[in-house]
């Protein structure tokens, strides 16, 4: 167990360091001087003096050597300081602190809904293989994988418009102040966001269950007279869960990326929408911070899934 965990951590640290280098390098590839771009404004005809330029460069830190810039960026992040937004001139950590929880809630709710719908669907599909129920759930699964998340979002909005006469923004109520209202507003974006994962999890659950059903211990469980429900849930589903976990782990990145489009459609004030706005504003420091936070979350969640996997499946630990 210990060597596996140690090895997995050894992989995590250098990869994270490389990721920080990449994000840093990427944002230094911006054509031209960010300070000049800012002063020139969107039309590119702003007037400014050399003194203003020097002051802004000093404030953004772009007048220092690259290595120093990189190290101070890392040091800042370790202390929770992401620097200042180039566009709004506000501390980035405050914006992230306000918006990241909203995005995380949306993603968690989407994943929860996906599991709650997909696992029974997949199990049903496997138990009633080659019946109408199986075909129906397989069609949903195949369609769900081909439909882009943002189109599902638009369809959900259309559904809300025609049935409830609602249009985004649905507004946003804080989870801790008004949990019921918050849930009402988050559930529709979450359905749209989780649709792809739901389809995928249903597919994997089905194939994984079908595989497990062929195992000897299922025959044993049945022949010792267990009820079918107990066989399915306690024996089959428990063993079929590992592939489901792996696939969901791989899809975490896609789920987080999906919040970008879903938050844009439903006007949810989360980190995804902030990223799109920052790109339109050319707020490079903000883009850099958000991309870094997302990459860190993906890396960390992959680590968690791998460790969970090792904990659930002793074969990996003792290899």
């Amino acid at each position: 167990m210990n060597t596996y965990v140690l090895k997995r951590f050894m992989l995590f640290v250098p990869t994270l360091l490389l990721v920080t280098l990449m994000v840093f390098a990427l944002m230094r590839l911006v054509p031209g001087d960010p300070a000049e771009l800012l002063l020139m404004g969107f039309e590119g005809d702003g007037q400014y003096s050399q003194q203003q330029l020097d002051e802004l460069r000093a404030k953004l830190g772009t007048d220092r050597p690259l290595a120093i810039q990189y190290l101070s960026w890392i040091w800042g992040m370790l202390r929770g300081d992401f620097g200042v937004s180039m566009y709004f001139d506000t501390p980035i950590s405050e914006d992230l602190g306000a918006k990241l929880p909203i995005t995380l809630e949306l993603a968690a709710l989407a994943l929860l809904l996906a599991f709650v719908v997909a696992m029974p669907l997949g199990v049903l599909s496997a138990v009633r293989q080659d019946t109408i129920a199986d075909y129906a759930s397989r069609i949903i699964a195949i369609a769900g994988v081909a439909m882009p998340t943002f189109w599902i979002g638009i369809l959900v909005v259309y559904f809300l418009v025609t049935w409830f006469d609602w249009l985004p923004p649905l507004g946003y109520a804080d989870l801790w102040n008004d949990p019921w209202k918050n849930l009402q507003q988050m559930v529709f974006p979450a359905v749209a966001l989780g649709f792809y994962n739901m389809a995928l999890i249903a597919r994997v659950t089905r194939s994984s269950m079908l595989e497990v059903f062929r195992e000897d211990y299922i025959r044993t469980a049945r022949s010792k007279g267990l009820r079918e429900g107990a066989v399915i849930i306690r024996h089959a589903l428990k063993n079929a869960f590992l592939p489901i976990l792996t696939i969901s782990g791989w899809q975490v990145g896609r789920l987080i990326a999906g919040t970008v489009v879903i938050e844009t459609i439903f006007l949810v004030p989360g980190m995804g929408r902030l990223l799109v706005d920052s790109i339109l504003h050319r707020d490079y420091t903000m883009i850099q911070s958000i991309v870094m936070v997302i990459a860190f979350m993906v890396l960390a969640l992959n680590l968690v899934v791998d460790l969970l996997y090792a904990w659930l499946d002793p074969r990996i630990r003792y290899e």
Partner: protein
Amino acid sequence: MAQQTTGVLAPTEPTGVGMRPKRTFWENIVNFAQQKPLGAFGAVVVILLVVLAIFAPIVATDDPRETNAAYRFNPPNADTWLGGDQIGRDVYSRLVYGTRISLVVGLLSVFFGVTIGAFIGIVSGYFGGITDLVIQRIMDAMMSFPALILALAIMAILGASVTNVVIALSAVFIPGAARTIRSQALSIKEVDYVLAARAVGAGDWRIILRHMAPNCAATFIVLASISLGWAIVVEASLSFLGVGIPPDVPSWGGMLNGVAQNSLDVAPWLGVFPGLAIAITVFAVNLLGDALRDVLDPRMRGAN
């Protein structure tokens, strides 16, 4: 084994005993269609889309960029088959022209991305050691960015244009292709013909380009066809967000930009048809890709 006792210089038997009968091109196609009806269906849809893209000026009824005040929010009818958009352009004609962007951007970015990735993968697998270790860590790091996020970050730097979308999407496909091709290169490296090439004194790069690369071709095709649907979705997502294809170029994703907030209550068709076009295309491409994977590379069955 018995045949080998005749000696190395004995001419190969031309009878082809035990070999699959040689099929013509058409027989191959018919065979594919019989074995993989869904894949064949996908192929037919993809061919239709390619034809649509090539003959867009003939198939379209209007100029996709021309605005006509009378078409504004026009519901689908005899004039505007799929309706008119918020500034009076014909949705049907824009959809037809949008096929071009989706296919061209998708194919180009998959081609560049998978080619670069495959090259990196072969080099990594062939040289092994520290080269392999460093390259693999870099690929791991690239993979920690979700596809759309990496593409968004690159677009933020380069700015919205068709070329830049191709560049951003190509970068997205490099790490996955590198990883898959690397594992194949690791096994090819030990095969007799590579050892033979080295024995007669072929250099590293000659072995890589002349002996190893051609033997990764099947995997290359499979990777490209599996990635194409994904490329089309990410391109559409970028354009939908307003940071991909510039708004004056008709693209499916761009047609959906702002629809949810501005026009869905008065003109729902604006939100339905472009999305349907994307879904059908991706669905067909995926069917074809899955079938090609099963036929060309049985080892990858069940991957993805």
